[in-house]
């Protein structure tokens, strides 16, 4: 078989896989959303305010409820030192543009 045909076949396989992604996403989203809604209903009464992205520091566990100074309040001259603190931004001030 010619090299060009082999390459085109490989690209076709890649394209088929690529075009299957939206179909898979739609199918998987439907079942995952149903599961998420069931869990959300179960926990609705708790009125949770934050996503559990990282649990190492209070201010990255609940970024929406902490203030901007929280990372520096551990002790006088405290420096922010948790790895997730460099990835999760502090909460926005009310007059700050998103």
């Amino acid at each position, binding site marked *: 078989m010619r090299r060009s045909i082999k390459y085109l076949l490989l690209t076709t396989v890649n394209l088929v896989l690529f075009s299957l992604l939206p179909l898979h996403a739609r199918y998987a989203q439907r079942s*995952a959303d149903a599961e998420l809604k069931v869990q959300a209903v179960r926990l609705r009464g708790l009125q949770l305010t934050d996503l559990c992205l990282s649990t190492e520091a209070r201010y990255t566990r609940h970024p929406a409820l902490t203030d901007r100074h929280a990372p520096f309040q551990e002790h006088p001259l405290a420096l922010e030192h948790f790895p997730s603190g460099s990835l999760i931004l502090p909460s926005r001030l009310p007059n700050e543009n998103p």
Partner: protein
Amino acid sequence: MKTVVERHLNILDFTLASLLRRKGKNLSLLTIYLLVIFMLASLVFFVTALKREASLILEDAPDMVVQRLMAGRQDLVPSLYADSIASIRGVSEVRPRLWGYYFDVNGANYTIMANDDPSAEPESAMIGSAIARSRNMVVGDLMPLVSYDKVPLLLQIKSILPGGSDLMAADLILISSNDFRRLFHFPAEQATDLAVTVRNPKELATVASKIVQMFPDSRPILKSEILRTYQAIFDWRGGMTVVLLASALISFIIFAWDKATGLSAEERKEIGILKSIGWSTSDVLLLKFWEGVVISLTAFLLGVVLAYGHVFFLSAPLFAQALKGWSVIYPAFRLSPVLDGYQLAVLFFLTVVPYTTATIFPCWRAATTDPDAAMRS
């Protein structure tokens, strides 16, 4: 038509043979290109999926959370605040919330919350799946916690929240209000904060200003502010995104720059030979176009497919590690897949198009020179 297709196939054959002649160089090029696209696409998928989950989960967030500040730190809220806030016109419900953090001896940090559910039995707990995973616990096991009075509190695991709720409650321990007060020696008639529900969402800002007037030491946090915090975290300018985006883009720029700044002596010679045996400038450009397409399209398609698998089948281990940091308890990022066509199109035009152009441009310069000069150079 047949001749055109045949011409393209012949040139593609030649391109592939030419690429295979420099197998080592081109394979490493393809690998780096694929990695750059893989990182960028993974980031796009991860952030888009988290944004979507955040919006779904935070739908149930309270309209407003009222905290009390004391000397710049969050302090407990007396129940008197709840009664006064409930009397503000437009407020439909004020619910004192009891929650806090428990630092375990193994370094784990749990979020402990009092469950208002009347079915919550004393000395029993509902725990997040990450805690059960980390401590190898099953329903019925006993979970010992040490209270602030140094008295052990033995909690029987009543149920384990399923993995589907990890993004909400991976580190959560739900216990009864009495157990919560016993554990933290929490004063009566006080709460951690107040969850306020307002009938008309348009009145939230007015209610918040009334609360601040009534209690100057209070800090109301509106639902819109909570949502904005998460928008900022997942924004492209946000900490996590910008670090990865910048490193991937810089590597891509170095890589495309290297390609665009010139051809090797061997490639120049090859173009000279092709021109001298009768190839036209357009044939040479077509050859280089195919060379760019073979590398960039393969890298793009494979990179995106692998990124999808990385984020949605393997729970994004590369990014989870970064978020995990020193956490002992961490969620499994089992995200619901989201595919944004617009973002994929942007990724395509930011990576495939510049690379292909960067491949053609120096060749156009070489192909328009005299073949003899090109071969001698």
